[in-house]
């Protein structure tokens, strides 16, 4: 599965970074999310899904 992000929607809450720090970080230069790894292994799906639903503006999604 792959992480998709709508950067225009990202409002830098950084909730995703808290939930799944291996996949998400905060880019100080752009002030937006930085996707460290867009591929999600089956063992990582739960954590990444929590990160995605923790985004207050729904800027993240998962595709197959």
């Amino acid at each position, binding site marked *: 599965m792959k992480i998709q992000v709508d950067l225009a929607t990202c409002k830098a809450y950084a*909730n995703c970074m808290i939930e799944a720090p291996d996949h998400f970080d905060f880019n100080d230069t752009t002030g937006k999310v930085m996707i460290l790894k867009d591929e999600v292994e089956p063992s990582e799906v739960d954590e990444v899904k929590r990160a995605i639903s923790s985004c*207050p503006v729904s800027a993240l999604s998962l595709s197959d």
Partner: protein
Amino acid sequence: MSNASDLLIIGGGLASISVIRELRDAGDKRSITVLTDEKTPPYDRPPLSKQFLLAQMDEEEIGIFRDGEMASLDVLWKQQYRAVSLDPDELCIGGVDDGRAEAFTWSAKDIVIACGARPRVPLGLGGEVLTLRTLVDARRLRGRFSEGAKVLIIGAGFIGLELASSAHEMGCDVTVVEAASAPLSRVLHDRVGSWFVDFHRRNGVDIRCGRMVQRLSRQGTQSMVEFDDGLIQTFDTVVAGVGVQPVTDWLEGSGIDLDNGIVCDGRGETSRPHVWALGDVANWPHPMTGARERVEQWQAAVDQGRTVAQALMGKSAEWSSIPYFWSDQHGSKIQFAGRSSKDVELTNPTEDTLAVIFCEGDVGVGIFTVDQPRKLALGRRLLAQGGDLRRLRQLLT
């Protein structure tokens, strides 16, 4: 008309949806019915005082469900179904289908109550005082916050301050009146509150603390307001953000414990088995202190929803995540994690940013930042790991 489901959820907001998403994600296939008294599909509340009010997002965009998600969750969603009674022995809800003006009953193996809270209205003032909780309220305010309108906001909590920011951005002449000596005093420390007074004043909002509205009366299309210092002023629109109270009147005498909301254990179960509650209506043990609290946070609705779902599936569950909320005011990102305390350390306060550590002895228990999302995120992790004060100081300075 009598009905039954495996799981019955009262309330169609974020908390309910969080429970459903967690169950379906885990592959749980039980039948789920949601009863909500609202007439619209579920929407997210935080944008109501911000992006929706400012017309940066429309009604479709604030919807909680992603495209196609509602259908894929396989939930029976009943709008305008208002619950009026609970029988915790029979596990049955009695209510009214407001669409058809018909009574109904609905039984289930588990009942989850997430019917939220309603705004308090300052009593005995007279005149017209608006509030903001629902989409209907927000649509009304969109019209009332017109360019040049004189707006009075009663209450400098998060709702009041966000409304003040939005109204100002919409071209209104905004005054905020707050009874306490500083804004946000219920949730934060006075020293943090006073930074907010300067912040809002710099951004063109007149904030008056230690001041109350004595009386209001309609004068044509306006409100004449008398303050407790004798000052009398006229406003076009008056909105109160003075807190909410849990919607529990329909549960009085039902047999479940009520005390500042529905009393629950750390998994969300009420005083009666198979009856659960979460979100703004529910009083849970605080994950950091164990003390009972009704936590009115978006993040709590999400996390408690996951906890209840896990418990419903018979898995061990306890709400343990660090409480977190955010607020957007005058384009600044305000964030808070953990809990507040009497002792605060303000690190490097400038006009534009602020970072605060709340401590108890030599442990950090909460952090508060303005426009420092990365530090807040890293700080949240430190709090979850025990709140090492030295490392928190290093992070925020």
